[in-house]
């Protein structure tokens, strides 16, 4: 009966002739290739980040332009009003939703008056 101890422990695994002679050189080449690939991938990643950054910057710029445009319009309207060229009725007449605007103005006026009144009441309670 065969037993493990009777089997030779010889190495049965061979390598091609001259395998070890070129191994270090081939390994160095592989290392260099990987480094080059890493650098290349790093470059691609950096380019991608730059592209995404530029995309966001351009988007941001567009929205700034929109804001600037809106603020220019607001400034012009204020100029027309302060110069007495337009009055409240002109503005309401030009608005798409004059009733809503009027409601908002009234509501804010009421809030202001109520707030003021309440403040006065509180002050009165404190001091008297």
């Amino acid at each position, binding site marked *: 009966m065969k037993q493990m101890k009777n*089997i030779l422990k010889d190495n049965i695994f061979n390598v091609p002739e001259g395998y070890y002679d070129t191994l270090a050189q081939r390994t160095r080449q592989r290392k260099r290739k990987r480094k080059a690939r890493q650098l290349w991938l790093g470059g691609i990643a950096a380019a991608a980040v730059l592209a995404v950054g530029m995309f966001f910057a351009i988007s941001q710029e567009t929205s700034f332009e929109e804001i600037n445009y809106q603020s220019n319009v607001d400034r012009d309207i204020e100029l027309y009003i302060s110069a007495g060229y337009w009055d409240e009725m002109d503005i309401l007449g030009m608005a798409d939703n004059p009733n809503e605007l009027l409601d908002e103005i009234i509501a804010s006026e009421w809030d202001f008056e109520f707030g003021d009144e309440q403040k006065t009441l509180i002050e009165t309670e404190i001091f008297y």
Partner: protein
Amino acid sequence: MVPISDLKLIELIQDPQTKDRGFQLLMDYYQQRVYGIIRKMLIVHEDSDDVLQNTFIKAFRNIHKFNRKSTLFTWLYRIAVNESLNFLESKKKRFFFPIEDHHEIMENYLDKSPLINGDEIQKFLQKAILKLPEKQRLIFNLRYYEDLNYEEISQITDTSVGALKASYHHAVKKIEEQIKSF
């Protein structure tokens, strides 16, 4: 080849002026032994060559992490073992082929490759070892073929000596059972 200490070898690799020479020496010293353990795990020469090169590239890049608590050889073995097990793991997942297919490739390689030169019983022993679970196979190879002691295997595999002893004896028992049928 003039013997050189681990410390000297590490110094050579870490110095930009001498790193190429250090790398060459590291490979000259350890390539055959490290190849041996990888080949016994992967059987196929081309796979072993691939993993061996990756082992040395990894070692070279991470030499600064070598803590000098073990020998450079034990540290290299550890990387080689991890790379080999990862390779086998990747074969389980790649293209959804099951691991059995890769086992078949390794078994056929033992029968047909011109890079295998053992007699029939030696090949039969290799096939019996192949039937063991991967980690048990690794422990068996390190103990039986590499003649490493349990302390060294413990450092390489991060496994307790007790567990290693149990695993090895279990592996031997399973192999002996198979050899009886030869």
